């Protein structure tokens, strides 16, 4: 029937005397191990932070650590109170969010609902460009362009303040807020809009009373992601927030957010010493904070996705 050879033997092998295919089995094991990698790394990060951070919380009782307002890592004995850092993180995050959310959501509405497709398509790469800017470059821009302007405009002693950092952070969270909100708006089914137009609504009324409410959960996820980004951002705040150790009272004060505290302290910290552990403890708090924010964002996004697909 077949003039060419069946000699490699496999073709006539029995279905049951299966060759074991060891190579394939090993590869599948390797693939499985790699599949677990994300979990392993995430747990690894948590483990390291706990292991290196907990000693600090033993040394300094946790409430003193969290609510203490003095950070004197090299005095004897050292004092580790991170409230100034925490408050600084809150200030820059608040400033960033207050600026980025209305602008970002507004831009998303404009792109998704009002701008012609061509305009939206042209703007997209520009927004993506922004998301590709390294944070050190944004810090640099803040340092040389924004901070002198802030100093003059507000008549401050220094332009390196929480506000300056917040403005730069706002720019950095815009891409994610715009793109996630835009996606959420575009996912609102056309019939929703048609139905509202059918009732004689103006375009703006349709947008405001139909589209935005329908996309609200997606938009709030976008906001959460922006917040997460602002909390975790390091270089920008390290370079332009001012780096003052005192408890900041207003956003116009120079301040030192948690990420900056780690970055500027780790180089001087004696490995395994009290400051070293204290910085890891700050890392642990940061980790948990961003984990919390991201989990909520993921939850909300998931729900938004299901809203128009499963129903």
């Amino acid at each position, binding site marked *: *029937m*077949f*003039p*060419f*050879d*069946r000699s*490699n033997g*496999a*073709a006539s*092998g*029995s*279905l*049951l005397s*299966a*060759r074991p*295919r060891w190579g394939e089995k090993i590869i599948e094991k390797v693939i499985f191990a790699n599949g677990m990698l994300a979990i392993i790394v995430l747990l690894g990060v948590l483990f390291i932070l706990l292991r290196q951070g907990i000693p600090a919380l033993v040394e300094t009782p946790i409430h003193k650590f969290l609510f203490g307002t003095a950070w004197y890592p090299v005095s004897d004995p050292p004092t580790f109170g991170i409230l100034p850092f925490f408050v600084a993180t809150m200030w820059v995050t608040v400033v960033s969010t207050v600026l980025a959310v209305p602008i970002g959501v507004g831009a998303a509405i404009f792109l998704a609902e009002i701008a012609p497709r061509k305009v939206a398509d042209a703007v997209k790469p520009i927004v993506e460009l922004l998301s590709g800017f390294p944070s050190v470059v944004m810090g640099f821009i803040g340092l040389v362009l924004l901070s002198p302007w802030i100093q003059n405009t507000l008549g401050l002693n220094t332009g390196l303040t929480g506000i300056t950092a917040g403005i730069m952070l706002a720019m950095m969270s815009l891409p994610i807020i715009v793109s996630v909100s835009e996606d959420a708006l575009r996912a609102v089914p056309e019939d929703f809009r048609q139905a509202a137009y059918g009732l004689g609504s103006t375009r703006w009324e349709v947008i405001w009373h139909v589209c935005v409410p329908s996309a609200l959960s997606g938009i709030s996820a976008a906001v959460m992601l922006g917040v997460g980004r602002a909390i975790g951002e390091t270089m920008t705040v390290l370079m332009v927030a001012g780096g003052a150790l005192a408890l900041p009272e207003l956003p116009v004060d120079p301040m030192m957010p948690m990420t900056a505290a780690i970055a500027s302290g780790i180089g001087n910290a004696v490995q395994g010493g009290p400051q070293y552990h204290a910085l890891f403890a700050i890392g642990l708090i940061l980790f948990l904070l961003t984990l919390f924010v991201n989990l909520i964002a993921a939850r909300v996004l998931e729900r938004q996705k299901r809203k128009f697909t499963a129903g």
Partner: protein
Amino acid sequence: MNQVSMVTVNNKNNANVQPEGEARLRMENVNLYYGEFHAVKDISLDISSSSITAIIGPSGCGKSSLLRLFNRMNDLIPSARIEGLVEFDGVDIYQPGIDVVELRKRVGMVFQKPNPFPMSIYDNVCFGPRRHGIRNKRALDDIVEKSLIQAALWDEVKDKLDQSGLSISGGQQQRLCIARVLAVEPEVILMDEPCSALDPIATLKIEDLMRTLSASYTIVIVTHNMQQAARVSDMTAFLMVGDDRAGMLVEYGQTSEIFTNPKNKKTEDYITGRFG
């Protein structure tokens, strides 16, 4: 022509047929579920060697599901669950320890939509043999030529073997897919509506091809096209959904019998176009 048994129709439930000769493929009280959904219900049928068996029936009655049971393609669907016995050459192919890869090598499949790989015609045909360890260039050349000749495609593509498999016409693509299956020397070829995406001329070409191939291969073909079943097949199985939406075998027998003298009223209605 093969010996074919007479049809016995069980009016209460399913047709149950035992050909006199040895069966190449055999199903016994097979049920298939997709999650909660009962897609194939209590089907038993035997398929003998070197014949063409057509599976016909209205859309959604479970023809593809049934066909995919023979080479365990349903394994790819996470929700699929099977009960009952499916045998190939007397071996229960769902028993533990079965080498599914080996099974699929012997029971190849052609799909409804031509799906040549995005590589050259030559590489498409060689793909199976290469994976099965044939490296020798001469041997591969031989396989390509023979498979394409068998698939009645050689003359049309012999000068452009290095062109993409996607660059040829739909009918040629489907024959390329058949050649790709032939290249691994299967014993059974399952075809799921192989002509539904093709024009009438391409369809006739594939039908001719099937007749030729039936001398050396056991072929099972799912088709929507009644004339096609009548033209090419030796045996015909007619499936329909019952009241519970599960597909069941209404009648199975010699094609000439089914089309000229159906035993079951539903078969007759379907064949004469009164529904479906």
